[in-house]
């Protein structure tokens, strides 16, 4: 695997005057939207994520790819401090997590919440304004306008007063995306944003994400559908508990790295079959 070298080469180009590997590393940590070093997370005795180094670039969409149980969601959650890390370091725009939380938006898995919860679409989007509104601030004026604009951007403006339980899976996912947009962040972390959504929603979400990228934001998404990785994403991070590969799609998404991530049972020509059969474990 050459990807560690690749990223160091990239960092060396950016680091003033070249410098040693350690200095390059430090420069990378200081500027990347999201960088982790030696990240280890464990549920019980078995590590879910083991000693992972990763650097997620700005102005790019990165797919986190790997088989079921490979620690993809866990990696995101550990970056956000939702699950505790056993070891390792997380840097967001060069800062510790707590200092940079306001620059991150998060879209959890749609299936992780109870959509029968008594609330409306607009109310869910308002949760993304919590940081500005605080415990008691009112959602009027500027904040209200922002919430409604975000619903517009995902094509859900007409559903503002709708009960969330009445939405289709695709509509629920759009609402979650609108909530993340309301956070007006610089780094967007999405956990399987395309899982169980209709084709029109998938298209709409990709369009919104590409627009974010064009605005210079960093987008990182856990992604299951290997067939669309090259269409949607610029960069890829392959993981199976440990880091397998990292880089642009052209560099890091190939038969060799997929075989390493999915257990050596695949050739590149089998990628389509893999997609049809669902990810191997």
């Amino acid at each position: 695997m050459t990807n560690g070298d690749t990223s160091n080469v990239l960092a060396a180009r950016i680091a003033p005057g070249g410098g040693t590997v350690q200095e390059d590393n430090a420069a990378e940590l200081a500027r990347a939207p999201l960088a982790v070093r030696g990240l280890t997370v464990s549920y019980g005795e078995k590590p879910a994520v083991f000693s992972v180094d990763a650097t997620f670039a700005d102005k790019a969409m990165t797919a986190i790819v790997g088989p079921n149980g490979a620690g993809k969601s866990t990696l995101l959650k550990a970056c956000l401090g939702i699950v505790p890390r056993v070891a390792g370091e997380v840097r967001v725009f060069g800062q510790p997590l707590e200092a940079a939380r306001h620059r991150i938006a998060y879209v959890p898995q749609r299936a992780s919440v109870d959509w029968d919860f008594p609330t409306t679409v607009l109310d869910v989007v308002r949760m993304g304004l919590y940081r500005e509104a605080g415990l008691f601030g009112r959602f009027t004026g500027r904040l209200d306008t922002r919430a409604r604009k975000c619903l517009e951007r995902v094509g859900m403006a007409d559903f503002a007063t709708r009960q969330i339980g009445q939405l289709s899976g695709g509509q629920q996912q759009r609402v979650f995306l609108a909530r993340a947009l309301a956070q007006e962040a610089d780094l967007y972390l999405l956990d399987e944003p395309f899982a169980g959504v209709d084709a029109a929603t998938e298209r709409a979400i990709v369009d919104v994400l590409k627009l974010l990228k064009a605005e210079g934001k960093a987008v990182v998404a856990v992604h299951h559908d290997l067939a669309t990785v090259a269409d949607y994403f610029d960069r890829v991070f392959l993981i199976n508990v440990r880091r397998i590969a990292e880089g642009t799609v052209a560099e890091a998404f190939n038969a060799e790295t997929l075989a390493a991530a999915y257990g050596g049972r695949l050739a590149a020509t089998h990628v389509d079959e893999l997609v049809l059969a669902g990810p191997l474990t």
Partner: protein
Amino acid sequence: MGADFVQFSLTPILIGVFAAIACALPGNFLILRRQALIGDAISHVVLPGIVVAFLVTGAVSAMPMLLGAAGAAVLAVVLIELVKRIGGVEPGAAMGVVFTTLFAAGVLILEQSDTSSVHLDVEHALMGNLESLIWLRAEGWHSLLDVEALASLPPELPRMALTCLLITALMLVFWRWLKIATFDEGFAASLGIPAAAVGFALVIAAALSAVAAFDAVGSIIVIAMFVCPPAAARLMTQSLERQVIWSVAFATLSAVLGYVLAGYGPLWLGGADAVSAAGMIAVVSGVILGLACLFGPHRARVGAGAA
């Protein structure tokens, strides 16, 4: 509605109402988190704590009993975690095992010890003594302004009112934390909201309500009020804010109607004695839930067909 009412019915009804509301408020969130059993568990496990506190101090006094109950609640939480981790069983099963065992232990200790001299027995633990919490010194509505008469109010009343007030205040202050963390714990944590601590604090608040209410009204009301008013309220509306308001209304209605029916219902039916107020309050709350199931405007799971 004169002096008799103030003397014999006003304080029990108020205590019942405060107890019902104090339990129904956290119940709303416990139900949405699918943790309704926790309220049940807590109200069971406080029994051994209260009995042990009595055996240690030898008196039925509030503070030691509350401490004993709180100790038992903490012990139960620890035991539930242990059973869950070591036994590898699901949380519901762990709770079921721990709270029935502790409750049974409480009953056994109670039976084996000499509590005949005081008003502490299994019946009291289950049904409380709401009917006996009367205001003897009251001579009518004007007694509400009489400092001397007010001093003889049953201590359960201010204690329950204060608990109810505290729970309400906490819920209002941390409303957004509770709402976001209950709907989407992961997202809440990503915002920096201490979601796990919010969940823990909710259980503590429920325990506080249960312990305070237990002493006055017994565990039957506590169990019923954690579940019935919030569950019925959920069927009335699709907004969390309105659900909580409905639950307070249902809790109040259950307490008032239950108390009146227990006192006068049997007489109206030609019977001689009143029935247990706690039992009747719980029954009324159950009937309200039943009616909400049959006629509530939002009784169908709205998302059932759409997803």
